[in-house]
Protein backbone atom coordinates (compact mmCIF):
# COMPACT_ATOMS: atom_id res chain seq x y z
CA UNK A 1 0.00 0.00 0.00
CA UNK A 2 1.47 3.40 -0.89
CA UNK A 3 1.92 5.98 1.84
CA UNK A 4 -0.81 8.32 0.58
CA UNK A 5 -3.40 5.51 0.68
CA UNK A 6 -2.28 4.40 4.13
CA UNK A 7 -2.52 7.97 5.38
CA UNK A 8 -6.13 8.19 4.20
CA UNK A 9 -7.04 5.24 6.33
CA UNK A 10 -5.06 5.99 9.48
CA UNK A 11 -5.48 9.76 9.74
CA UNK A 12 -8.68 11.55 10.59
CA UNK A 13 -10.02 14.97 9.73
CA UNK A 14 -7.20 17.32 8.67
CA UNK A 15 -4.60 14.66 9.49
CA UNK A 16 -5.58 14.54 13.18
CA UNK A 17 -4.94 11.18 14.83
CA UNK A 18 -8.02 9.14 15.64
CA UNK A 19 -8.67 8.83 19.36
CA UNK A 20 -11.23 9.05 22.14
CA UNK A 21 -12.40 12.19 23.88
CA UNK A 22 -10.44 11.49 27.08
CA UNK A 23 -7.23 11.74 25.01
CA UNK A 24 -8.04 15.34 24.04
CA UNK A 25 -6.13 17.97 25.99
CA UNK A 26 -7.47 21.34 27.12
CA UNK A 27 -7.57 23.99 24.37
CA UNK A 28 -7.41 21.26 21.73
CA UNK A 29 -10.24 20.21 19.47
CA UNK A 30 -12.20 16.98 19.39
CA UNK A 31 -13.58 16.46 15.90
CA UNK A 32 -16.61 14.23 15.72
CA UNK A 33 -18.78 13.18 12.80
CA UNK A 34 -22.52 12.83 13.32
CA UNK A 35 -23.81 11.52 9.99
CA UNK A 36 -27.52 12.05 10.46
CA UNK A 37 -29.72 12.41 7.39
CA UNK A 38 -32.37 15.04 6.67
CA UNK A 39 -35.86 13.61 6.77
CA UNK A 40 -37.77 16.40 5.07
CA UNK A 41 -37.50 18.16 1.72
CA UNK A 42 -36.33 16.96 -1.65
CA UNK A 43 -32.61 17.38 -1.05
CA UNK A 44 -30.70 14.92 1.10
CA UNK A 45 -27.17 13.62 1.48
CA UNK A 46 -25.96 15.06 4.80
CA UNK A 47 -25.02 11.62 6.11
CA UNK A 48 -22.08 11.61 3.67
CA UNK A 49 -20.65 14.90 4.91
CA UNK A 50 -18.29 13.89 7.77
CA UNK A 51 -16.40 11.32 5.71
CA UNK A 52 -16.37 13.57 2.64
CA UNK A 53 -14.76 16.32 4.70
CA UNK A 54 -12.14 13.92 6.05
CA UNK A 55 -11.40 12.72 2.52
CA UNK A 56 -11.05 16.22 1.11
CA UNK A 57 -8.67 17.40 3.85
CA UNK A 58 -6.54 14.33 3.14
CA UNK A 59 -6.56 14.86 -0.63
CA UNK A 60 -5.63 18.53 -0.38
CA UNK A 61 -3.24 18.12 2.53
CA UNK A 62 -5.14 20.63 4.65
CA UNK A 63 -4.29 20.80 8.36
CA UNK A 64 -5.91 22.56 11.33
CA UNK A 65 -4.33 25.51 13.12
CA UNK A 66 -4.85 23.67 16.44
CA UNK A 67 -4.01 20.25 17.81
CA UNK A 68 -6.60 17.63 18.66
CA UNK A 69 -8.12 14.25 17.94
CA UNK A 70 -10.62 12.89 15.47
CA UNK A 71 -13.15 10.97 17.53
CA UNK A 72 -14.66 9.20 14.51
CA UNK A 73 -18.37 9.11 13.78
CA UNK A 74 -21.06 8.87 16.43
CA UNK A 75 -23.10 5.67 16.40
CA UNK A 76 -26.57 6.76 15.38
CA UNK A 77 -28.39 3.76 16.79
CA UNK A 78 -30.37 4.42 19.97
CA UNK A 79 -30.69 7.81 21.66
CA UNK A 80 -27.82 9.47 19.85
CA UNK A 81 -28.89 13.10 20.55
CA UNK A 82 -28.52 12.40 24.29
CA UNK A 83 -25.17 10.69 23.71
CA UNK A 84 -24.01 13.66 21.63
CA UNK A 85 -25.11 16.14 24.31
CA UNK A 86 -23.25 14.16 26.95
CA UNK A 87 -20.06 13.96 24.89
CA UNK A 88 -20.12 17.68 24.14
CA UNK A 89 -20.66 18.47 27.83
CA UNK A 90 -17.74 16.25 28.86
CA UNK A 91 -15.42 17.82 26.31
CA UNK A 92 -16.36 21.40 27.20
CA UNK A 93 -15.92 20.62 30.92
CA UNK A 94 -12.34 19.56 30.14
CA UNK A 95 -11.61 22.67 28.08
CA UNK A 96 -11.74 20.80 24.78
CA UNK A 97 -13.47 22.47 21.83
CA UNK A 98 -15.92 20.04 20.22
CA UNK A 99 -16.02 20.38 16.44
CA UNK A 100 -19.08 18.49 15.29
CA UNK A 101 -19.46 17.64 11.61
CA UNK A 102 -23.12 16.98 10.76
CA UNK A 103 -25.35 15.73 9.62
CA UNK A 104 -28.68 17.45 9.52
CA UNK A 105 -29.79 20.33 11.75
CA UNK A 106 -30.78 17.91 14.53
CA UNK A 107 -27.03 17.55 15.16
CA UNK A 108 -26.82 21.25 16.07
CA UNK A 109 -29.76 20.85 18.46
CA UNK A 110 -27.76 18.23 20.34
CA UNK A 111 -24.70 20.48 20.58
CA UNK A 112 -26.65 23.58 21.61
CA UNK A 113 -28.58 21.56 24.18
CA UNK A 114 -25.31 20.88 25.97
CA UNK A 115 -24.50 24.59 26.22
CA UNK A 116 -27.83 26.26 26.97
CA UNK A 117 -26.48 29.50 28.45
CA UNK A 118 -23.96 30.42 25.81
CA UNK A 119 -24.73 32.82 22.98
CA UNK A 120 -24.81 31.36 19.47
CA UNK A 121 -23.38 32.75 16.27
CA UNK A 122 -25.68 31.22 13.70
CA UNK A 123 -24.80 31.28 10.01
CA UNK A 124 -28.03 30.28 8.31
CA UNK A 125 -30.48 31.75 5.83
CA UNK A 126 -33.64 31.44 7.95
CA UNK A 127 -33.72 32.45 11.62
CA UNK A 128 -34.96 29.62 13.86
CA UNK A 129 -37.28 30.07 16.82
CA UNK A 130 -35.45 27.54 19.01
CA UNK A 131 -32.26 29.59 18.66
CA UNK A 132 -33.93 32.98 18.95
CA UNK A 133 -35.54 31.99 22.26
CA UNK A 134 -32.29 31.00 23.99
CA UNK A 135 -31.28 32.94 27.09
CA UNK A 136 -28.41 34.81 25.44
CA UNK A 137 -28.85 36.83 22.28
CA UNK A 138 -27.96 35.11 19.02
CA UNK A 139 -25.84 36.74 16.32
CA UNK A 140 -27.26 36.00 12.89
CA UNK A 141 -24.98 35.67 9.87
CA UNK A 142 -26.26 35.64 6.30
CA UNK A 143 -30.05 35.83 6.73
CA UNK A 144 -31.81 35.74 3.40
CA UNK A 145 -35.38 35.76 2.12
CA UNK A 146 -38.62 35.95 4.09
CA UNK A 147 -38.17 35.38 7.81
CA UNK A 148 -40.89 33.88 10.04
CA UNK A 149 -42.80 36.88 11.47
CA UNK A 150 -42.81 35.64 15.08
CA UNK A 151 -39.08 34.97 15.07
CA UNK A 152 -38.38 38.31 13.44
CA UNK A 153 -40.37 40.13 16.15
CA UNK A 154 -38.30 38.31 18.75
CA UNK A 155 -35.04 39.32 17.06
CA UNK A 156 -36.18 42.95 16.88
CA UNK A 157 -37.48 43.12 20.46
CA UNK A 158 -34.30 41.68 21.90
CA UNK A 159 -32.17 43.84 19.60
CA UNK A 160 -30.17 40.89 18.29
CA UNK A 161 -27.33 41.60 15.87
CA UNK A 162 -28.01 40.35 12.35
CA UNK A 163 -26.70 40.81 8.82
CA UNK A 164 -28.19 39.67 5.56
CA UNK A 165 -26.16 37.73 3.03
CA UNK A 166 -26.18 40.75 0.75
CA UNK A 167 -24.92 43.12 3.46
CA UNK A 168 -22.07 40.75 4.21
CA UNK A 169 -21.16 40.26 0.57
CA UNK A 170 -21.09 44.05 0.22
CA UNK A 171 -18.55 44.27 3.03
CA UNK A 172 -20.78 45.27 5.97
CA UNK A 173 -19.58 42.46 8.20
CA UNK A 174 -18.57 44.41 11.29
CA UNK A 175 -20.62 43.00 14.17
CA UNK A 176 -20.69 45.64 16.89
CA UNK A 177 -20.89 43.48 19.99
CA UNK A 178 -19.51 39.98 19.54
CA UNK A 179 -19.51 37.90 22.74
CA UNK A 180 -16.27 36.74 24.31
CA UNK A 181 -17.37 33.09 24.26
CA UNK A 182 -19.99 31.55 21.98
CA UNK A 183 -21.07 28.50 20.06
CA UNK A 184 -20.67 28.62 16.29
CA UNK A 185 -23.29 26.94 14.11
CA UNK A 186 -22.70 26.98 10.39
CA UNK A 187 -25.50 25.67 8.23
CA UNK A 188 -23.97 25.31 4.79
CA UNK A 189 -27.30 26.37 3.27
CA UNK A 190 -26.23 29.92 4.14
CA UNK A 191 -24.11 29.81 0.97
CA UNK A 192 -25.64 30.66 -2.38
CA UNK A 193 -26.34 27.52 -4.36
CA UNK A 194 -24.72 29.07 -7.42
CA UNK A 195 -21.37 29.29 -5.66
CA UNK A 196 -21.48 25.93 -3.89
CA UNK A 197 -24.21 23.45 -4.70
CA UNK A 198 -23.65 20.94 -1.93
CA UNK A 199 -26.27 21.97 0.58
CA UNK A 200 -29.68 20.62 1.56
CA UNK A 201 -31.28 24.06 1.49
CA UNK A 202 -31.91 26.10 -1.64
CA UNK A 203 -30.64 29.63 -1.02
CA UNK A 204 -30.50 31.84 -4.12
CA UNK A 205 -28.95 35.17 -3.15
CA UNK A 206 -27.08 33.57 -0.27
CA UNK A 207 -23.54 34.33 0.80
CA UNK A 208 -20.42 33.76 -1.24
CA UNK A 209 -18.20 31.04 0.30
CA UNK A 210 -15.25 33.39 0.65
CA UNK A 211 -17.44 35.94 2.47
CA UNK A 212 -18.47 33.31 5.00
CA UNK A 213 -14.81 32.46 5.61
CA UNK A 214 -13.78 36.09 6.10
CA UNK A 215 -16.78 37.03 8.30
CA UNK A 216 -16.26 34.09 10.66
CA UNK A 217 -12.49 34.57 10.60
CA UNK A 218 -12.90 38.22 11.63
CA UNK A 219 -14.90 37.36 14.77
CA UNK A 220 -12.82 37.44 17.92
CA UNK A 221 -15.03 34.99 19.87
CA UNK A 222 -13.46 32.11 21.72
CA UNK A 223 -15.56 29.29 20.34
CA UNK A 224 -16.74 26.81 22.95
CA UNK A 225 -18.13 24.46 20.32
CA UNK A 226 -18.48 24.48 16.55
CA UNK A 227 -21.07 22.59 14.56
CA UNK A 228 -21.47 22.34 10.80
CA UNK A 229 -24.72 21.06 9.30
CA UNK A 230 -26.59 20.92 6.02
CA UNK A 231 -23.66 19.83 3.84
CA UNK A 232 -24.65 17.40 1.11
CA UNK A 233 -21.36 16.68 -0.66
CA UNK A 234 -22.70 14.46 -3.42
CA UNK A 235 -24.66 17.44 -4.79
CA UNK A 236 -21.46 19.38 -5.47
CA UNK A 237 -19.15 17.51 -7.83
CA UNK A 238 -16.57 20.32 -7.68
CA UNK A 239 -16.26 20.18 -3.90
CA UNK A 240 -16.74 23.92 -3.34
CA UNK A 241 -19.18 23.31 -0.46
CA UNK A 242 -16.75 21.02 1.35
CA UNK A 243 -13.97 23.51 0.74
CA UNK A 244 -16.18 26.29 2.16
CA UNK A 245 -16.85 24.23 5.30
CA UNK A 246 -13.17 23.34 5.74
CA UNK A 247 -11.87 26.87 5.19
CA UNK A 248 -14.53 28.39 7.47
CA UNK A 249 -13.63 25.94 10.20
CA UNK A 250 -9.96 26.80 9.82
CA UNK A 251 -10.75 30.52 9.92
CA UNK A 252 -12.79 30.03 13.10
CA UNK A 253 -10.07 28.00 14.82
CA UNK A 254 -7.37 30.49 13.91
CA UNK A 255 -8.16 32.49 17.05
CA UNK A 256 -8.08 29.49 19.39
Amino acid at each position, binding site marked *: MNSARKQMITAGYADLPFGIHSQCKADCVGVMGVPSEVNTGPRSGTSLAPDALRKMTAQ*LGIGLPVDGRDLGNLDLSGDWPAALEQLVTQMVDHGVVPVVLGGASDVASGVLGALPDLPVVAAMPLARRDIATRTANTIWVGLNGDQPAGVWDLISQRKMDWRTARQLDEGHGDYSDTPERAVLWIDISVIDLGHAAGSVGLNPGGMKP*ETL*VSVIGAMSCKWQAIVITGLAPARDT*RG*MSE*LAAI*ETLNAALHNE
Partner: protein
Amino acid sequence: MSEAAQIQFDAIPSFLGASIGDLEDLVPGQVAIAGYFCDNLARPSAGQRYLARQLRYASCPTVTPANAIDLGDVNVFPLEPDKHFLAVASQCESVLETGARMVLVGGDSSGLEALDVAARQVTGADVPIIGVNGGAVSHLPRTQPVILSVDLQELAGKWVSHPHRLTGMSPAQMIAQIDATPGDTIAAAVFGLAPELDNRGKAETRAALAILQAVTARLEKGAG
Protein backbone atom coordinates in the same frame (compact mmCIF):
# COMPACT_ATOMS: atom_id res chain seq x y z
CA MET B 1 11.13 20.84 -42.35
CA SER B 2 10.04 20.05 -45.90
CA GLU B 3 6.78 21.39 -47.25
CA ALA B 4 5.36 17.86 -47.59
CA ALA B 5 6.15 17.05 -43.99
CA GLN B 6 4.68 20.36 -42.86
CA ILE B 7 1.45 19.62 -44.72
CA GLN B 8 1.25 16.24 -42.93
CA PHE B 9 1.67 17.93 -39.55
CA ASP B 10 -0.96 20.58 -40.25
CA ALA B 11 -3.69 18.20 -39.11
CA ILE B 12 -2.11 17.67 -35.70
CA PRO B 13 -3.39 19.93 -32.93
CA SER B 14 -0.66 22.19 -31.61
CA PHE B 15 -0.36 24.77 -28.83
CA LEU B 16 -2.23 27.91 -29.92
CA GLY B 17 -2.19 26.57 -33.48
CA ALA B 18 1.55 27.22 -33.74
CA SER B 19 3.52 25.41 -36.40
CA ILE B 20 5.09 22.11 -35.41
CA GLY B 21 8.84 21.81 -35.49
CA ASP B 22 12.00 20.35 -34.07
CA LEU B 23 15.11 21.60 -32.38
CA GLU B 24 16.82 22.35 -35.68
CA ASP B 25 13.94 24.60 -36.75
CA LEU B 26 14.48 26.99 -33.84
CA VAL B 27 15.97 30.44 -34.34
CA PRO B 28 17.03 32.97 -31.69
CA GLY B 29 14.13 34.87 -30.18
CA GLN B 30 11.57 32.27 -31.21
CA VAL B 31 9.25 30.82 -28.55
CA ALA B 32 9.43 27.02 -28.29
CA ILE B 33 6.43 25.51 -26.51
CA ALA B 34 6.77 21.94 -25.25
CA GLY B 35 4.46 19.63 -23.30
CA TYR B 36 5.59 18.12 -20.01
CA PHE B 37 3.90 14.76 -19.36
CA CYS B 38 4.88 14.12 -15.74
CA ASP B 39 2.88 14.72 -12.58
CA ASN B 40 4.27 12.32 -9.98
CA LEU B 41 7.46 14.00 -8.80
CA ALA B 42 7.01 17.42 -7.17
CA ARG B 43 3.65 18.17 -5.52
CA PRO B 44 2.21 15.11 -7.24
CA SER B 45 -1.41 15.10 -8.33
CA ALA B 46 -2.58 12.72 -11.02
CA GLY B 47 -4.08 14.38 -14.09
CA GLN B 48 -1.80 17.42 -14.34
CA ARG B 49 0.13 15.62 -17.09
CA TYR B 50 -2.90 15.87 -19.39
CA LEU B 51 -2.89 19.66 -19.49
CA ALA B 52 -0.63 19.89 -22.55
CA ARG B 53 -2.79 17.53 -24.59
CA GLN B 54 -5.96 19.33 -23.50
CA LEU B 55 -4.58 22.73 -24.48
CA ARG B 56 -3.49 21.48 -27.88
CA TYR B 57 -6.98 20.10 -28.56
CA ALA B 58 -8.62 23.31 -27.36
CA SER B 59 -6.32 25.61 -29.31
CA CYS B 60 -7.93 27.72 -31.97
CA PRO B 61 -5.70 28.35 -35.00
CA THR B 62 -7.13 31.85 -35.48
CA VAL B 63 -5.05 33.23 -32.62
CA THR B 64 -1.75 31.71 -33.73
CA PRO B 65 1.25 33.53 -32.27
CA ALA B 66 3.56 34.95 -34.88
CA ASN B 67 6.83 33.62 -33.57
CA ALA B 68 6.09 30.37 -31.72
CA ILE B 69 6.67 26.74 -32.51
CA ASP B 70 5.27 23.55 -30.92
CA LEU B 71 8.18 21.24 -30.16
CA GLY B 72 6.02 18.31 -29.03
CA ASP B 73 6.54 16.84 -25.58
CA VAL B 74 9.89 16.59 -23.84
CA ASN B 75 10.99 13.02 -23.19
CA VAL B 76 10.24 11.98 -19.64
CA PHE B 77 11.12 9.05 -17.38
CA PRO B 78 8.72 9.55 -14.48
CA LEU B 79 9.56 6.22 -12.84
CA GLU B 80 13.28 7.02 -12.78
CA PRO B 81 13.48 10.45 -11.12
CA ASP B 82 17.25 10.97 -11.44
CA LYS B 83 17.38 9.99 -15.09
CA HIS B 84 14.20 11.99 -15.69
CA PHE B 85 15.52 15.19 -14.18
CA LEU B 86 18.82 15.04 -16.08
CA ALA B 87 17.05 14.27 -19.34
CA VAL B 88 14.49 17.07 -19.02
CA ALA B 89 17.11 19.62 -17.94
CA SER B 90 19.33 18.60 -20.84
CA GLN B 91 16.49 18.94 -23.38
CA CYS B 92 15.55 22.37 -22.01
CA GLU B 93 19.21 23.36 -22.20
CA SER B 94 19.38 22.32 -25.86
CA VAL B 95 16.41 24.54 -26.63
CA LEU B 96 17.72 27.57 -24.73
CA GLU B 97 21.17 27.21 -26.32
CA THR B 98 19.62 27.95 -29.72
CA GLY B 99 18.68 31.39 -28.40
CA ALA B 100 15.00 30.48 -28.42
CA ARG B 101 12.80 31.07 -25.40
CA MET B 102 11.00 28.10 -23.91
CA VAL B 103 7.60 27.36 -22.36
CA LEU B 104 6.99 24.05 -20.59
CA VAL B 105 3.29 23.25 -20.41
CA GLY B 106 1.56 20.90 -18.01
CA GLY B 107 2.61 18.42 -15.39
CA ASP B 108 3.79 19.26 -11.89
CA SER B 109 6.35 21.79 -10.69
CA SER B 110 9.29 19.44 -11.36
CA GLY B 111 9.42 20.84 -14.91
CA LEU B 112 10.13 24.29 -13.49
CA GLU B 113 13.05 22.89 -11.50
CA ALA B 114 14.57 21.36 -14.64
CA LEU B 115 14.04 24.61 -16.53
CA ASP B 116 15.83 26.48 -13.74
CA VAL B 117 18.87 24.19 -13.97
CA ALA B 118 18.94 24.51 -17.76
CA ALA B 119 18.69 28.31 -17.67
CA ARG B 120 21.50 28.50 -15.12
CA GLN B 121 23.64 26.28 -17.33
CA VAL B 122 23.03 28.33 -20.45
CA THR B 123 23.37 31.82 -18.91
CA GLY B 124 26.17 30.88 -16.51
CA ALA B 125 24.37 32.56 -13.62
CA ASP B 126 21.38 32.12 -11.33
CA VAL B 127 18.19 33.08 -13.11
CA PRO B 128 15.44 34.49 -10.84
CA ILE B 129 12.11 32.68 -10.96
CA ILE B 130 9.18 35.08 -10.87
CA GLY B 131 5.94 33.53 -9.64
CA VAL B 132 2.54 34.70 -10.83
CA ASN B 133 0.84 34.73 -7.46
CA GLY B 134 -0.72 38.13 -6.99
CA GLY B 135 2.29 39.44 -5.07
CA ALA B 136 4.06 42.71 -5.75
CA VAL B 137 6.04 42.82 -8.98
CA SER B 138 9.75 43.03 -8.24
CA HIS B 139 11.99 45.60 -9.87
CA LEU B 140 14.57 44.07 -12.17
CA PRO B 141 16.72 45.49 -14.97
CA ARG B 142 15.17 45.04 -18.44
CA THR B 143 17.98 42.75 -19.53
CA GLN B 144 17.96 40.49 -16.46
CA PRO B 145 17.05 36.95 -17.63
CA VAL B 146 14.11 35.58 -15.67
CA ILE B 147 11.95 32.46 -15.62
CA LEU B 148 8.21 32.86 -15.27
CA SER B 149 6.45 30.37 -12.99
CA VAL B 150 2.73 30.13 -13.71
CA ASP B 151 1.19 27.81 -11.12
CA LEU B 152 -2.45 27.34 -12.12
CA GLN B 153 -3.27 26.29 -8.56
CA GLU B 154 -3.16 30.03 -7.83
CA LEU B 155 -6.49 30.33 -9.64
CA ALA B 156 -9.50 30.89 -7.36
CA GLY B 157 -11.67 27.85 -6.72
CA LYS B 158 -14.51 29.03 -8.92
CA TRP B 159 -12.35 28.81 -12.05
CA VAL B 160 -11.42 25.15 -11.78
CA SER B 161 -13.32 21.89 -11.65
CA HIS B 162 -11.41 20.52 -8.66
CA PRO B 163 -10.63 23.52 -6.45
CA HIS B 164 -7.84 23.42 -3.90
CA ARG B 165 -8.94 26.61 -2.18
CA LEU B 166 -11.72 29.19 -2.32
CA THR B 167 -9.76 32.37 -2.85
CA GLY B 168 -7.11 33.08 -5.45
CA MET B 169 -6.52 34.90 -8.68
CA SER B 170 -8.78 35.23 -11.68
CA PRO B 171 -7.38 34.41 -15.14
CA ALA B 172 -7.51 38.14 -15.97
CA GLN B 173 -5.41 38.99 -12.89
CA MET B 174 -2.89 36.31 -13.86
CA ILE B 175 -2.67 37.60 -17.41
CA ALA B 176 -2.19 41.17 -16.19
CA GLN B 177 0.65 40.04 -13.94
CA ILE B 178 2.24 38.00 -16.75
CA ASP B 179 2.13 41.08 -19.01
CA ALA B 180 3.80 43.13 -16.28
CA THR B 181 6.62 40.68 -15.57
CA PRO B 182 9.90 42.60 -15.43
CA GLY B 183 13.20 41.55 -16.96
CA ASP B 184 14.03 39.44 -19.99
CA THR B 185 11.76 36.41 -19.78
CA ILE B 186 13.73 33.57 -21.32
CA ALA B 187 11.58 30.67 -20.15
CA ALA B 188 8.29 29.85 -18.46
CA ALA B 189 6.48 26.91 -16.95
CA VAL B 190 2.69 26.66 -16.91
CA PHE B 191 1.66 23.85 -14.58
CA GLY B 192 -0.46 22.66 -11.66
CA LEU B 193 -3.83 22.07 -13.32
CA ALA B 194 -5.43 18.65 -13.74
CA PRO B 195 -8.14 19.53 -16.25
CA GLU B 196 -11.37 17.62 -16.53
CA LEU B 197 -11.18 16.02 -19.94
CA ASP B 198 -14.87 16.47 -20.77
CA ASN B 199 -17.23 19.44 -20.93
CA ARG B 200 -16.92 20.09 -17.20
CA GLY B 201 -13.35 21.21 -17.81
CA LYS B 202 -14.28 23.76 -20.44
CA ALA B 203 -13.92 26.85 -18.28
CA GLU B 204 -10.57 25.88 -16.77
CA THR B 205 -9.22 24.80 -20.15
CA ARG B 206 -10.19 28.12 -21.72
CA ALA B 207 -8.67 29.97 -18.79
CA ALA B 208 -5.43 27.99 -19.07
CA LEU B 209 -5.32 28.57 -22.81
CA ALA B 210 -5.72 32.33 -22.38
CA ILE B 211 -2.94 32.26 -19.79
CA LEU B 212 -0.67 30.26 -22.15
CA GLN B 213 -1.37 32.81 -24.84
CA ALA B 214 -0.34 35.62 -22.50
CA VAL B 215 2.82 33.74 -21.51
CA THR B 216 3.74 33.19 -25.16
CA ALA B 217 3.11 36.85 -25.96
CA ARG B 218 5.26 37.88 -22.99
CA LEU B 219 8.11 35.66 -24.16
CA GLU B 220 7.80 36.92 -27.72
CA LYS B 221 8.24 40.44 -26.34
CA GLY B 222 11.53 39.44 -24.68
CA ALA B 223 13.01 42.15 -22.47
CA GLY B 224 10.09 43.90 -20.73
